[in-house]
């Protein structure tokens, strides 16, 4: 069964079609990369999937249910974890508390007035931090963390609601090359063990070709190529888009 099915998705800004008739599906446990040059419509596409933007037309089905019109909050409740291109964490809280926040929300405990938040789901949070390899940073404030570690916090937070699907917008952006490979290897390892599907965008082609099961190429809002990494790598149209005319 496919976790995500997208049919003829369209989004226009003014007269410009940012995404035109994009359709694809994502299988269970599959890691799918969405690539394309700047302005290809990757972020627009992403933002429609997680509910930040409403498509002009088209369907999005998550685990067999329609999600068009749902807010990011409701999409998350359906089992979608999210990481951002520019990390978004709670800077006045510790690393562990960031994960605890997601756990509190997942267990619908956000309106509890009496218990102490820092003592809720502590072990669960630590287990997740251990999984992504930053258990040693649990007590540190997210306001002082190195960027690479913040990316890991994002991953830990995204894993907290036992997601079926992870949406990762440039998960390694802003990191050093070595860190990039490490983080993506770690992510791939975790999702494969837990059977989580992943859709990610990325500019680092090493990361894309090493870890994606399948790659989609978006150009000017249209899906122009799709397939296994090797096939996409050799696609003449893709070469032309990335390297310019003359290389085709």
């Amino acid at each position, binding site marked *: 069964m496919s976790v995500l099915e997208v049919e003829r998705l369209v989004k226009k800004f003014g007269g410009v079609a940012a995404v035109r008739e994009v359709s694809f599906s994502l299988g269970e446990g599959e890691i799918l990369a969405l690539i394309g040059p700047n302005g290809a419509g990757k972020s627009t596409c992403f933002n429609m999937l997680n509910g930040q933007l409403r498509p002009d037309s088209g369907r999005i089905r998550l685990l067999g249910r329609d999600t068009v019109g749902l807010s990011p909050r409701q999409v998350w409740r359906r089992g979608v974890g999210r990481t951002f291109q520019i990390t978004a964490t709670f*800077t006045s809280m510790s690393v562990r508390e960031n994960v605890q926040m997601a756990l509190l929300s997942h267990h619908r405990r*956000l309106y509890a007035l009496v218990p102490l938040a820092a003592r809720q789901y502590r072990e669960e949070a630590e287990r997740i931090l251990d999984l992504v390899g930053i258990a040693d940073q649990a007590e540190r404030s997210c306001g002082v963390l190195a960027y690479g570690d913040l990316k890991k916090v994002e991953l830990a937070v995204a894993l907290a609601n036992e997601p079926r699907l992870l949406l990762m917008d440039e998960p390694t952006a802003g990191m050093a090359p070595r860190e990039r490979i490490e983080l993506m290897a770690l992510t791939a390892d975790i999702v494969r063990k837990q059977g989580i599907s992943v859709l990610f965008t990325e500019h680092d082609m090493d990361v894309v070709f090493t870890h994606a099961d399948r790659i989609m190429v978006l150009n000017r809002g249209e899906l122009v190529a799709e397939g296994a990494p090797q096939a996409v790598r050799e696609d003449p149209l893709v070469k032309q888009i990335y390297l310019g005319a003359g290389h085709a």
Partner: protein
Amino acid sequence: MSFFVVQFLTGLASAASLFLVACGLSIIFGVTRIVNFAHGSFYMLGAYLAATIVATLPVGIFSYWGSVLVAALVVGLIGIVVEIVVLRRIYHAPELFQLVATFGVVLVVQDLTLAIWGPADKLGPLAPGLDSAVNIGGQLLPEYDVALIILGPAVLGLLWLLFHRTRWGTLVRAATQDREMVGALGVNQRRIFTSVFFLGACLAGLGGAVQIPREPISLMMDLNVIAEVFVVVVIGGMGSILGAFLAAVIIGELNAFGILIFPEITLVLLFLVMAVVLVIRPRGLLGKPELTVGAQPAQIAAIHLPGPATKLAMGVLFAVLALVPLFAGDFLLVLLIEVMLLALFAASLHFIMGNGGMVSFGHAAYFGIGAYGAALAVVHSDSPMELALVLAPTAAGLAGLVFGWFCVRLSGVYFAMLSLAFAQIAWSVVFQWYEVTGGDDGLLGIWPSEWASDRFAFYYLSLIIVAGGVLMLRRMIFSPFGYALRAGRDSPLRSDAIGINLRHQQWASIVIAGAFAGLAGGLYAFSKGSVFPDAMSIPRSVDALVMVLLGGVDTLAGPLVGAAALIGLEDAISRFDYWRLILGLVIILICVTAPNGIVGSLKLAFAGRRERE
């Protein structure tokens, strides 16, 4: 029919002055990102100056309009002074400090105006040449109103030309979109900021100056107009001049026609229109989304559960307060009761502001509604103190339910302005509804029950309720609810992405904070034996902000220290005639020099020393 035409034209005439002030505010905000609270003061100064200048000149058309123009220009110069002395130092401070600092300017201007022109209202002259009325189908419309109806669109047109046909205007529009980029292009930003402030202040001064034949000139003009202007700006959309014009016309017409149906209903109408606009267009009629407002503190302090030392300190403080009545006189007890009640009030504001990032400029609404809730129960249905003290937080919580529903749709300065508008509406209702609230005369004879009627007993009652309230608020800050609120302050994007319904969470927090403020207000009414409209006035709201600020936004003990400091300060300076001036200067000084507050600065100094050791 002609009656309605005249009424419509009167509405347009009133809109002119409102538009001038509102677009000045909007233009200043567009470039500097500062909501200038002192804009009402500029308006008031414009009226006083114009009346004074025109009185020194021989009567004539030219001397009248000349005076109006000169008054506007002088106000513009005063604006430049304010910009250079105060605002220039806080462009990069969090928005809260900017708002509060400009309120400090309001206080200073109020006392200076009082010192120069005295407390009595003044009546301006009629405009020569426009002192009779036009007959429209048997109905009379003052000629002066016709002039104002022309003035509004004329200024709108001139501003359009200024912004679209001059180099300066192009630079200002560019700076409105991206001031850093304009700076990077080598444009002198300072000069742009100062000149924009001059223009905005001029427009406010002009708005006040042209009003002198239409309304008495008084010391209340500043705060009266600022609340209306905030409503105009919220409806029209911040930063849009045309939006300000449309909204001013809407408000002007609502006032003109509303007053026919039922004088009190004008306020309700305003409220409804604002509500409808905000629900349909949260950024106002012509407002643009995504205005980045004021800089946030780069590093937001973490909070920690009280350690043994803090707990000990809190215990000692409680013990000291519990022992004070054994040796203190009546005067000190009365003062301490006031400090405690205001501390609870400040702590309730801190709950939503420090923890939730919602800068409320109308928190006194809840304090006042609590006080009036209790007082009305006593006066109109003879209810005992115990019942009244249950009604007080209930009434305030309900008000939070209504006001909060609207406020949580907005953020940043919009939230601040809307909360202030609500508080001002509540204040006007209390002020005008004489039969029920006693208007300006207040409600008297609000005495505690027999058992709590002596100072001793009332002191302990206050101590227990305040200590309980503050502890409950503190506990909630550490609860999942409080954490979720703080999560929303830290990153709305991430909150949304992990399923937190931020609006809902904030709404609930406003109800809770409102209820605690109302409880403080209810007790306050009993402690004084009376209640007056100023319990929910703008200065009272600012008191709460200053207390939180004095203590430090990021510290939990802040509100308590802030309350003690503010009451201490007010007690010390209240014997001076011009205590507002002193208070205003102190506020400005704090905003400019110690943005971390007393507790925050001590903490920083302490941490710094430890690091050096």
